[in-house]
């Protein structure tokens, strides 16, 4: 089986490619890239007007299986991911039961494989049952296929346990993804602390509740000599702390979500529970600093934090609704709007944050179109407008504040390990 993608605008930041050309895929690998390729292929795709890039890699998602299958399954989650151009997604371990053993890791990997919809990378828990008290058997998790561990949803509150987890994880060559949140400081907060929380009378979450933990975890990673990845950075202070840590050589990386780049806390005047996320939507100033952080490399990756919830869980009082929004299918147009339209990043820079850069965070050998690499490819129509309609949502849940929005930038096709995967026409 061979596929020839003709006349596309190839953007592969891993190789520094940003020009028109053809790509030939044979089997599951890329066999030729660039220029006019004359060879005959089983399938020819005319990619005139499209960007051809490595399939996106999402460092942060919640596939809800096992335990939350009514919200999302590995199958529905990966289908939504593919619709958004993601060919690899990291699945956070806050499932029920949590992903903290070899059996759980293998269950997830196999489930993902069965779907034929791209790679599901299980992120193992840092602590057993995500309780923050006993480390998981990280060496075995690594062997089972984990590249990272996280107690996402919570910080490891106990500093000594976090220190030891960092030390142990570095021995197992795992990156520790930290959800940075000082729960005591968050108290009963449900939105960013500032003018809007005051006006709306909603419990405030100070930005410092994040940056205090970012600071602690960076210092502990420094002490442990470990690789630390800061999940969903949302404040200006966090960006600043990470920037300074990187400057002094700490092995820290960071991600930001499309929604934190797109919406500020002012949006909550509607009390739309789909805007209730953790960390909360922040101020305009935070958004500006996040964009700067992406531009100067402080923030390495864009990750969705795709978090499905049922309609009846979200359709209620703001205080009682769960945190989180889905994000796979809207990621590309949102970051296009926030970063490209506003002139912060070029297409190659943006694609780098979705491909080679997250791959580096994980130490994962994808995210490039180099010859011999697994052919995970996304075809992007950069200027196509489409309406994000509830009826077309691929995820099992539809908790997105962007439903009804007209979005610009669409995924036209996805190739996973050399096979075309059908994406719903938008």
């Amino acid at each position, binding site marked *: 089986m061979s596929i020839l993608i003709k006349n596309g605008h190839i953007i592969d930041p891993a190789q520094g490619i940003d020009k028109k050309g053809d790509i030939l895929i044979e089997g599951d690998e890329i066999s030729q890239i660039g220029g006019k390729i004359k060879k005959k292929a089983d399938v020819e795709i005319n990619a005139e007007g499209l960007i051809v890039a490595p399939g996106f890699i999402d460092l942060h998602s919640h596939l809800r299986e096992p335990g939350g299958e009514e919200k999302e399954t590995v199958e529905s989650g990966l289908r939504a991911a593919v619709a958004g151009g993601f060919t690899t997604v990291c699945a956070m371990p806050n499932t029920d039961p949590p992903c903290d053993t070899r059996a759980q890791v293998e269950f997830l990997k196999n489930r993902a494989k069965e779907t034929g919809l791209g790679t599901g990378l299980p992120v193992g828990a840092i602590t057993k049952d995500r309780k923050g008290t006993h480390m998981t058997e990280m060496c075995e998790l690594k062997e089972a296929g984990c590249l990272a561990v996280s107690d996402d949803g919570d910080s490891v509150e106990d500093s000594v346990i976090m220190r030891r987890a960092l030390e142990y994880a570095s021995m197992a060559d795992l990156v520790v993804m930290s959800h940075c949140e000082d729960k005591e400081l968050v108290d009963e907060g449900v939105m960013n602390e*500032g003018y809007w929380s*005051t006006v709306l*009378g*909603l419990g405030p979450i100070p930005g410092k509740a994040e940056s205090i933990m970012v600071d602690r975890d960076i210092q502990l990673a420094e002490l442990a000599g470990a690789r630390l990845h800061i999940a969903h950075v949302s404040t200006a202070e966090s960006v600043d702390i990470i920037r300074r840590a990187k400057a002094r050589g700490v092995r820290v990386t960071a991600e930001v979500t499309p929604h934190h780049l797109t919406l500020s806390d002012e949006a909550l005047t509607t009390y739309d529970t789909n805007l209730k996320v953790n960390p909360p939507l922040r101020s305009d100033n935070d958004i500006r600093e996040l964009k700067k952080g992406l531009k100067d490399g402080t923030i390495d990756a864009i990750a969705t934090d795709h978090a499905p919830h049922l309609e009846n869980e979200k359709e209620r*009082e*703001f*205080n*009682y609704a769960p945190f989180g929004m889905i994000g796979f299918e809207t990621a590309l147009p949102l970051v296009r709007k926030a970063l490209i339209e506003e002139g912060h990043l070029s297409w190659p820079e943006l694609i780098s944050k979705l491909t080679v850069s997250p791959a580096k965070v994980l130490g994962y050998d994808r995210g490039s179109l180099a010859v011999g690499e697994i052919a995970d490819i996304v075809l992007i129509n950069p200027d196509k407008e489409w309406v994000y309609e509830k009826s077309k949502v691929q995820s099992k849940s539809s908790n997105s504040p962007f439903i009804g929005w007209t979005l610009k930038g669409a995924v036209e096709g996805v190739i996973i390990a050399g096979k075309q995967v059908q994406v719903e026409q938008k």
Partner: protein
Amino acid sequence: MTKKKQIPWEKKNLLGIEELSEEEIQLILDHAVGFKEILGRPIPKVPTLRGKTIVNLFCEPSTRTRSSFELAAKRLSADTLNVATASSSFAKGESLKDTAKNIEAMKIDMIIMRHACAGAPLFLSKNVDASVINAGDGSHEHPTQALLDVFTVREKLGKVSGLKVSIIGDIAHSRVARSNIWALTKMGASVTVCGPKTLLPAEIEKMGIKATSSLREAVEGADVLNVLRIQFERQKKAFFPSLREYVREFGIKADVLEKYAKKDIVIMHPGPINRGVELSQEVADGPYSVILDQVTNGVAVRMAILFLLGHARGKGGLKSRKNGKK
């Protein structure tokens, strides 16, 4: 009464003061004058809302506000139905949406809602055809309290514009404070909020007011003090060390007034008062206190609101619904 052109009331719901214009606030206050007169009649009841059904949906304990609304509705000849549920039961059992749909299926015209969660009345209004009146939602707004407060100020001092009004107490968790800030600033008063630093919420000055932790600063030059109820026992992680120290620093006592206050200062309190805490006994019962006038005015103002919403010309008012779907 002065003759002036009145704007029509077009809103279906009353969810907060923030969404009202100064003219709309004035309209309510002007109407309330008429309703206060009705309250003084031998038969203080008029038939204007006869045949309408008003539900008091109180998901948080309240005696005063609920009684005041119920009385207002009855004075207008509406039928009232009280539905009391603990908000916490919504967290587990029947969802608010289901409750709303169930109440609406009883063919009612208005829902007056008190809820522990900010935004709950807005949520309700999106799920029912009936008019919704916010009777206090979490720390967000308590519009009728603010309207009766400014009505009382206007009645006592003849105007609101240009006055200095200080709100004292737990500003962070107070819906009364927020609604009052909106109402007073829209009407041209200058507002100062005062309380322990732990109870002043972030960036509140951006609402166009002053914030201070100096009681003296709040009292000096003030025409009106609106003193909020302090609840110490409900604080999980205390915002101040003790009631004793609170009283020492922020309690309104006779000597504080003697030292710093204008002679004709007006003292308000949304009730119920913790005597000897936020207000000393003598101040609560003293000549400056208009606390009982507030209670009387509360019924008049709520009658005005029920009347205006009941006869709103806007979409969803009783008029449009009469011939409309429903």
